[in-house]
């Protein structure tokens, strides 16, 4: 657990200052076709200081964490902010103070002892052996077990000091088979939880039903057909809707990207989606439950609140740092986060979801005469114009209201604010997805979610 060498310096802060100590610890085991090709542990720890003066920041970080190293990092950050302010002379006033901030937000989750690597090794080996034994017709398989613990201690010149601990446990499985003419076909599934690895992954048989489904989907995909390219009526699985909320909409409403020319800049207050769409970046509690990745205070010392992005189809707000909140004349809501000790806080999403609607999923499928049910996405990207692209690793034809053949890998694309206007059915369920990382300059843990959506989508194919 991090010792507090930071608070003692608070009384000396002249400019707006954030002083952060952080430890990221990860363990990883990888079995590739039964071979243990990865068996690693890593730990990155250190401190950073960031200071604001006249519209520019100075930042410094160091790998040592001791009373002396805190002084050295503060000194280096002060030199950098002086260099920038002297040379750039933007002349901006100091950042507004955070009003009514709590003194210090303590740990919401106790820091627990790390588990031995053998727990991951045993789990991965048993899971791999289980897959090898049960599922025939695989040409290869990969099992990855992974943990990431992130502990942060933050002292700020104003706002909330905090001590946080975020543990994440993940298992990923890739299955590969071949078509009759030898073409490899793959499918992947990630399982992720917030907590200690062995709280969730103690018995590999607990994943059996999900793995059965993954294998079944793979066999269907092996015999799949290529999608017909063009604009199609589609039902998006909740997992894919979650990716849509993050990539296609979420990034365009991050205020740093708004200032950088995002399409959202001209759409605040305007209708950007069907009235069935509402979307929020939740801080720590959504629909009465704790979010998968709760954030109580961000790395600028801002107490976290929900950021309402779209309400009944209208764009209501952006996500902010303290600096962009001042620019837009609003209050910051705790979106500035950093991944490693040596990273500066950037505007990041936390728990971003499209709200559930009232439609039944089965009715949504039954309502499509000729289209696609798009289930899994491997990755996705968004653009400042709102254009997005997702790879689709698993999908099915819908013919006359019934699911048909699986489709081979393809890509969907569109313009977020146009596509969202075509949404005419929203399912009454909600699925969270927390197994991935967002990559905006730095990596970051984020969670995303949504219901199933019926919409029109541009689909690639042959």
């Amino acid at each position, binding site marked *: 657990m991090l010792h507090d060498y930071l608070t003692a310096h608070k009384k000396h802060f002249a400019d707006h200052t954030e002083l952060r100590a952080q430890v990221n610890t990860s363990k990883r085991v990888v079995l590739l*076709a039964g071979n243990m090709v990865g068996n690693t542990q890593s730990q990155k720890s250190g401190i950073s200081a960031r200071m604001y003066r006249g519209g520019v920041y100075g930042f410094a970080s160091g790998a040592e964490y001791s009373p002396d190293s805190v002084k050295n990092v503060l000194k280096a950050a002060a030199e950098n902010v002086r260099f920038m302010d002297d040379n750039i002379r933007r002349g901006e006033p100091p950042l507004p103070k955070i009003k009514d901030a709590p003194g210090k937000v303590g740990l919401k989750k106790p820091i627990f002892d790390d588990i031995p690597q053998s727990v991951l090794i045993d789990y991965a080996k048993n899971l791999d052996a289980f897959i090898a034994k049960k599922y025939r017709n695989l040409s290869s398989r990969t099992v990855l077990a992974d943990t990431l613990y992130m502990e942060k201690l933050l002292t700020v010149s104003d706002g909330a000091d905090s001590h946080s601990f975020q543990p994440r446990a993940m298992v990923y499985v890739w299955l590969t088979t071949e078509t009759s003419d030898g073409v490899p076909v793959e499918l992947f599934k990630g399982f992720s939880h917030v907590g200690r690895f062995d709280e969730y992954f103690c018995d590999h048989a607990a994943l059996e039903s999900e793995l059965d489904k993954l294998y079944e989907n793979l066999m269907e995909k092996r015999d799949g057909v290529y999608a017909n*390219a063009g604009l199609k009526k589609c039902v998006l699985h909740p997992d894919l809707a979650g990716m849509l909320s993050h990539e296609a909409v979420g990034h365009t409403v991050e205020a740093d990207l708004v200032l950088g020319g995002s399409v959202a800049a*001209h759409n605040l207050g305007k209708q950007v989606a069907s009235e069935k769409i509402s979307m929020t970046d939740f801080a720590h509690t959504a629909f009465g439950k704790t979010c998968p990745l709760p954030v109580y205070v961000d790395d600028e010392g801002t107490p976290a609140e929900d950021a309402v992005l779209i309400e009944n189809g209208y764009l209501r707000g952006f996500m902010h740092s303290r600096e962009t909140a001042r620019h837009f004349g609003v209050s910051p809501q705790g979106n500035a986060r950093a991944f490693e000790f040596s990273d500066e806080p950037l505007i990041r999403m936390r728990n971003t979801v499209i709200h559930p609607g009232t439609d039944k999923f089965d009715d949504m499928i039954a309502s499509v005469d000729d289209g696609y049910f798009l289930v899994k996405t491997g990755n996705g990207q968004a653009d400042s114009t709102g254009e997005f692209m997702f790879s689709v690793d698993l999908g099915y034809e819908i013919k006359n209201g019934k699911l048909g053949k699986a489709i081979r890998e393809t890509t969907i694309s569109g313009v977020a604010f146009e596509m969202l206007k075509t949404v005419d059915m929203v399912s009454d369920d909600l699925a969270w997805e927390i197994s991935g990382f967002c990559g905006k300059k730095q990596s970051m843990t984020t969670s995303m979610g949504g219901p199933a959506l019926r919409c029109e989508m541009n689909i690639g194919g042959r």
Partner: protein
Amino acid sequence: MKTTSFVEIAQYALGALKKSGADKSSCIAKKTIRDEFNVEANAFTLMRTTFDNSLVLTAIVGGRRGVTAINKHDKASIDEAADACVALAKSSEPDDAFDIAELVENKVFIKPEITKDRDGLFARIREYLGQVRDEFPKIIIEGFSSTLTDAEEAYVNSNGVIFESRYDAYGFHSMFVAKDGEKGTSFNYDGASFLKPSTPFLDSGMHRTLLEEAVKSLDTRMVDEKFTGKVIVTPACTDMLWGTITDNFLGDRALIEGTSRWKDALGTQVADKKLTFRAAPLNEPHIITGSRWTNDGYITRDVDFIKDGVLKSFALGLYGAKKTGKPRADTSTYHCEVLPGDIALAEIIKSTERGILLNRFSGGSPGASGDISGVAKNSFLIENGAVTDALQETMISFNILDALKNISAISRERVTNGTTHLPWVCLDGITVSGK
């Protein structure tokens, strides 16, 4: 050979690993000081300095392997990491393919001139922002960072291999859009690495062209039908072809799993004979960021993967080579080049009846089948031998293995960004579809 403190740190770690019970071991010790300037929305926002250490330990015990990584160099932290590393190895599975490099030749790689010219770099950034403001008033630099990296590094292993390096390097990465009122373009990005900050950023690689094309992309056109045509892949669009080839068909994972569709193709024609694709980490001055040794402990070399269309080498590391029985590559796939063709880019465009000039590809990571589909970004339509309109929402789909056999031309011109050295490559038979 005179050793640096980093060799001493690494050798201390080897001693700790041996004391903990390692049969074989290796260590990489590195210290990096980096200055970085950030720009957002055309304005300076931040300067940062990071002081970081890294130490990567590998232990093999009874044919079992463990790896630990920390960012500390003090003896207590190293001792603890060595114990953890050996414990990891003991809890692992034995595999005859785990090994470390044998001693061939120890070497010191020191950049002849260490300049650490932070003020020069800062001046280049100011110059760049001024040039963009004056020459491209519709461009918004959405996000920009420029770095000066000063690094010292050592690799040692228990077979007696010792490598040392010392270098400084400069670089920038710029993400930009064009904006005119409410009209805006897709973002694009570009960057380059340098030995010294002696060249204006705007003059590096394709940077000026990409900014010009961003402004031209304020007005776009939708392809309203599906057609099969040519796609000219520019040097700016690196990953779609070259990254996919190395990851999916040449690397350790694809060959160990047996999913590489080229697993039995060594010595056979896998691409049009115009194509020579190679790893070139030593190819200075075009490629200046190439690593001088591999993480396995071998001195890197330039390697032809595909020569005149024939598959000459895989990109296997030590483990992958031992596992598959195929030769090691001892190179860096990240630093690659494609040899030039014998035709000018202008001629390639002139001979294209209908196709696309592809600057950026936004698509899913292609699977082992080689099927690729995605959106053509920051790209232009070619009609009747001329580049015409910027494209909007246009998808392309093809199989990369088929496309490599269908290269209709490779340009005489090439572009370098310090990491790659690439020409324009024209692929035929690509499916293009609009909305």
